[in-house]
């Protein structure tokens, strides 16, 4: 018989470790055509980091994201970055880019201030303009200001900066301290169907609600969460590296089974409105945390459906069926 169950799991995940050096450096230069170039050592692997970093630079400089060219991942020409690891890129590299872009922007404010008869701190960078705060009609186009700074004042608009979440020593006695600079939170709910005669589990739906601070690019965050859930579903029900005599016996996709489009349930993803004052424009991170609660939620749903606790993943049909039979024996 098909039994339905619902399970929930919550998690927190740390962003920006502080137990050791964790730096990202960045360089931002604004060009005389009003575009900008960002140099970063981090790597794009499909998570959308370079888009997000370009958005962060664009927002700081008041220009369009399409006008930002991001150059990345070349040890010859790009600044040091600890890496596209630990869900740290938006937070740590993003903060470095804000700081670098602010320096480049400061040069533009100083160049534009006398021309607009104000002090640099009375200026803002928006809509491709350097503009007087609260006086939207008093402005200079950003490309003109860059050219003036470069060619007349001899001060090219460029900034380099690095960000390192302040390193905090852990208490050697208690092992306690503040190992990370920020934390994200999430809850996922799994709806499953379990066939109590075969042990087969089908995930029907996963509802995922995540906090990542203020999402810089909600579409990409959603994609990260959906992808993380697919890894979580595989972890819960299918994926396992099998060894025999120290050798992997399922080293290819014929026998290492991962979710296909038929295995993936309907996904409902929601982002919580939040703001972290230590992150770039309020953002924290969204990579690894997305996969954390999925398997736990599915195991709880299996328990809800058929009353067995699976504590050894993946919860294959064989394992679930064995647990159900065990339970039935105990009852009889």
């Amino acid at each position, binding site marked *: 018989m098909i039994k339905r169950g619902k399970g929930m799991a919550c998690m927190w995940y740390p962003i920006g470790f502080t137990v050791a050096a964790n730096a990202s450096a960045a360089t931002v230069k604004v060009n005389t055509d009003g575009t900008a170039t960002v140099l970063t050592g981090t790597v794009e*692997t*499909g*998570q*959308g980091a370079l888009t997000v970093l370009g958005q962060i630079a664009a927002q700081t400089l008041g220009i369009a994201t399409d006008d930002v060219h991001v150059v990345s991942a070349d040890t010859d020409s790009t600044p040091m970055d600890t890496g596209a690891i630990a869900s740290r890129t938006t937070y740590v590299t993003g903060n470095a880019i804000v700081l670098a872009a602010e320096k480049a922007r400061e040069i533009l404010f100083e160049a534009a201030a006398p021309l607009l008869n104000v002090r640099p701190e009375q200026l803002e960078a928006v809509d491709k303009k350097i503009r007087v705060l609260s006086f939207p009609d008093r402005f200079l186009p950003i490309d003109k200001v860059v050219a003036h700074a470069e060619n007349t004042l001899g001060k090219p608009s460029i900034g380099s900066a690095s960000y390192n979440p302040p390193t905090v020593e852990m208490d050697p006695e208690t092992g306690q301290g503040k190992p990370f600079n920020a934390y994200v939170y999430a809850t996922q709910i799994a709806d499953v169907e379990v066939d109590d005669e075969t042990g087969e589990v089908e995930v029907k739906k996963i509802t995922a609600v995540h906090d990542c601070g203020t999402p810089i690019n909600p*579409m*990409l965050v*959603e*994609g990260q969460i*959906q*992808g*993380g*859930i*697919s*890894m979580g579903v595989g972890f819960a029900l299918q994926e396992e590296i099998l060894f025999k005599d120290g050798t992997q016996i399922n080293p*290819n*996709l*014929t026998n290492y089974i*991962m*979710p*296909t*489009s*038929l295995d*993936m349930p309907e*996904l409902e993803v929601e982002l919580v409105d939040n703001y972290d004052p230590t992150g770039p424009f309020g953002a924290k991170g969204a990579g690894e945390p997305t996969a954390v609660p999925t398997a736990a939620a599915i195991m709880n749903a299996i328990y809800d459906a058929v009353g067995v606790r699976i504590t050894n993943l993946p919860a294959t049909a064989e394992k679930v069926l064995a647990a159900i039979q065990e339970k039935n024996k105990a009852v009889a």
Partner: protein
Amino acid sequence: MKVEITVNGEKKIADVSPETTLLKMLRDEFDLTGAKLGCDVGDCGTCTVVVDGESVNSCLMLAARASGSEVLTIEGLATFQKLHPVQQKFEDLGALQCGYCGPGMIMSAKNLLDKNKSPSVDEIRDALAGNLCRCTGYTKMIEAIQEAAKEINTTNAL
């Protein structure tokens, strides 16, 4: 041996050894590197191309077997002016992440829409079942294919 096929509307001839797969010929002889070599044994679908109207794993088809066929690869979808609606919607909705599965995924989707103008979600899931994606969870792809179907249908209705 000589193999003569039509690729993306262009007649092509190659001299290949008998065990050469269609994928290897496309990539090595014709420089069409859109179709990817993922597993080489028919598990992943990154090598998907359309042969005479059927989507196939080109790593499993011998080049000789495709002789005389019409082959469509990902390179044949876009023009310089315009992406194919499936490509455009994949881009608009952020349906790909690392992109490695993309060429195969998009060819499977395109072939589905050629045969079924308004596929249901289940029909789309079926059509993509041979294309593995490690990154995305498939959700945005399914949405993008539905959107592309809508767009193709409205353009055709005009």
